[in-house]
């Protein structure tokens, strides 16, 4: 068997198209892994740089805000860094990481605008898409497979060799199985090898790498099956190539685009920036409302501060932070609807993944790499939890009129590296 495989390998490698195709697969896969790792390294670098800058920033606020001891100044002017460090496999499938922020500096003010205004930072990057390993697998690998499989039998027929070959092979099924297996195996190897190298260098879990490798094989098997199915009709190599190219166009571009368009149409969601505007309008309207009305509305949600000293005079931080907080509460239903809309789209994308392999491959790759919508929403949830800790820290100072000293800056909550920043 090894001998026969060796013969087949020599035969394949002597074909004019095979070596360039296999080299290109390996090159593109390696380049995509390299590009992904460079992007992940850049993100790690940004996160690493944000930490000392955060300390510097807090010290700058501390230097002047601690002088009058007003907690409102400290809470208003101090930014708190949060970040979502990329998973070890993020290099393979960058997913949402290039369009959604992975670093967000938040204050104890109204949160939703802070979360959602970030979505327009890199919106233009969503258009061309990202060249990553998942892209090479989903869109390019089927083309390479088509190049090597479209003329498997028809090429032999056209060369006048088919009958001679069939008569010479005492195990004809074995002959075709070896040829198919070799081609699929070499393309899979070209895709998986750089992934494994990148995964090992990034410290990815072996189980995740195995899962991605299994996904590669499944995806290639689907395309292999399609190649064999369409080639069974006994047409010429050119006709096979044309019908397979048409299938590729339909299955990787047209149908996924139409399906996702349908999903987006079926589950319309307001843009995050609309939430930001709605929340800001609610916050700004706070300036024009009577303070007592604002405070009463706030106390209904936070009765623990009802007994504190009433707001008097023109401005007080507790009134300001109250209407900031009410701004968040005023868009809570919209935030919930926005999130449900996104989750419904995600659920339907997951369902589509079972019938459209291109969507399935990308969806699964992003899921395994933890760069999907779920991961993005989880980061937002961690930010909300952190913001809650910030408010719980500042509110006692603000509502009880406790002086905020220099040491108190050091007591402010920190974004937890492991639990919150991964």
């Amino acid at each position, binding site marked *: 068997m090894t*001998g*026969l495989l060796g*013969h087949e390998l*020599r*035969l394949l490698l*002597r*074909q*004019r198209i095979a070596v360039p195709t296999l080299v290109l697969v390996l090159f593109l896969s390696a380049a995509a892994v390299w590009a992904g790792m460079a992007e992940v390294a850049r993100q790690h670098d940004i996160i690493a740089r944000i930490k000392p800058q955060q300390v510097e920033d807090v010290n700058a606020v501390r230097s002047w805000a601690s002088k009058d001891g007003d907690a409102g100044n400290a809470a208003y002017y101090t930014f708190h860094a949060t970040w979502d460090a990329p998973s070890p496999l993020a290099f393979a499938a960058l997913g949402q990481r290039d369009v959604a922020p992975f670093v967000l500096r938040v204050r104890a003010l109204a949160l939703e605008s802070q979360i959602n205004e970030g979505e327009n930072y890199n919106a233009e990057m969503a258009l061309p898409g990202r060249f990553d390993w998942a892209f090479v697998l989903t869109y390019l690998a089927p083309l390479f497979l088509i190049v090597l499989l479209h003329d498997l039998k028809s090429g032999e027929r056209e*060369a*006048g*060799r088919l*009958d*001679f*070959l*069939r*008569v*010479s*092979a*005492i*195990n*004809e099924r074995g*002959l075709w199985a070896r040829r198919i297996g070799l081609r699929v195996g070499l393309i899979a190897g070209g895709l998986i090898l750089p992934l494994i190298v990148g995964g090992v260098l990034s410290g990815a879990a072996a189980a995740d790498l195995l899962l991605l490798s299994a996904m590669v094989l499944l995806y290639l098997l689907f395309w292999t099956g399609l190649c064999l199915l369409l080639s069974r009709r006994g047409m010429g190599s050119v006709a096979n190539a044309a019908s397979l190219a048409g299938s590729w166009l339909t299955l990787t571009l047209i149908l996924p685009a139409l399906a996702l368009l349908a999903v987006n149409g079926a589950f319309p969601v307001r843009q995050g920036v609309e939430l930001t505007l709605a929340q800001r309008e609610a916050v700004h309207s706070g300036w024009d409302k009577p303070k007592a009305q604002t405070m009463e509305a706030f106390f209904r949600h936070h009765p623990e501060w009802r007994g504190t000293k009433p707001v008097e005079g023109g401005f007080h931080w507790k009134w300001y932070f109250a209407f900031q907080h009410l701004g968040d509460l005023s868009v809570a239903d919209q935030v919930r609807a926005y999130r449900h809309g996104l989750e419904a789209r995600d659920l339907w994308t997951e369902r589509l993944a079972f019938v459209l392999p291109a969507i399935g491959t990308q969806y699964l790759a992003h899921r395994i790499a933890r760069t999907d919508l779920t991961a993005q929403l989880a980061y937002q949830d961690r930010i909300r939890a952190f913001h809650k800790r910030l408010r719980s820290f500042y509110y006692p100072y603000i509502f009880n009129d406790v002086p905020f000293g220099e040491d108190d800056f050091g007591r402010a909550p920190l974004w937890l590296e492991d639990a919150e920043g991964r």
Partner: protein
Amino acid sequence: MSPEIAQNDILYHVSLNARPTESIRQYNVALTICGNHAIKVFMTTAPTAAPRISIKDVALTRGARPVLRGLSLAVHAGEVYALLGGNGAGKSTTVAALLGFLKPDAGQILVADIDPVENAERARREIAYLPENVALYDQLSAYENISYFMALSGKEPSRDAMDAALDDAGLQPEARALRIGGFSKGMRQKVAIAMAVLRDVPVLLLDEPTSGLDPRATADFNALVTRLKARGTAILMVTHDLLGAADCADRIGFLAAGQIVEEVVPSKGMDVLALHHRYGEVAAA
């Protein structure tokens, strides 16, 4: 004592009914020594043995067109049968049916006692096939092509064995390690013939083997066919080449409209020109 035959030894030539799938050489045995005489018994397949190629009353339709209509012929071990016929007479269909690619509508085809449609892989172990246009892998050398196709048929011939077969086929030694992309049709055919020799199977199917060969190459090829025949191979040769057929075939069958209309046994002094005219008449009919 050596069983080799010495001068003046008494030879007994015994013919047995051998199983048709077994090679003649498997029966060469030395029995015993009687006094000063080594007695060697050559056991060969007898003319009465079952034919290696048997086609009985075969009818076969391709599309809506009946191509074979009750075709019957038999080729025994050590026999060359030349099947001649005009275009569309059914020659290629006969070969395709023998290779198991086409299933007869009626009748029976056996190759080495095996139904080539029902047991295609078993039958192909017994058949070597030389197509009209030998297409091998241009990117491989003659040696590599032989090595590959032999591996497919479950054999791993040594370089010496390949050289011997290529010597037999007449391919010059300096060409054997070269990629066959630049080979002439005759040279390619010699490589394929070497494969047939190395396959060492009881049945050889030749489809227009001398078409496009120059007279020298044709003569060489016919000589090789004669040598293979002497080894006990049953050879069915589909051809237009009456002269070549008359040179090496034991029987010539004229195929017209899907059946044998006339069968002749070539002999020395046969009027080949008259036969040629007769062939023309049959082909025209």
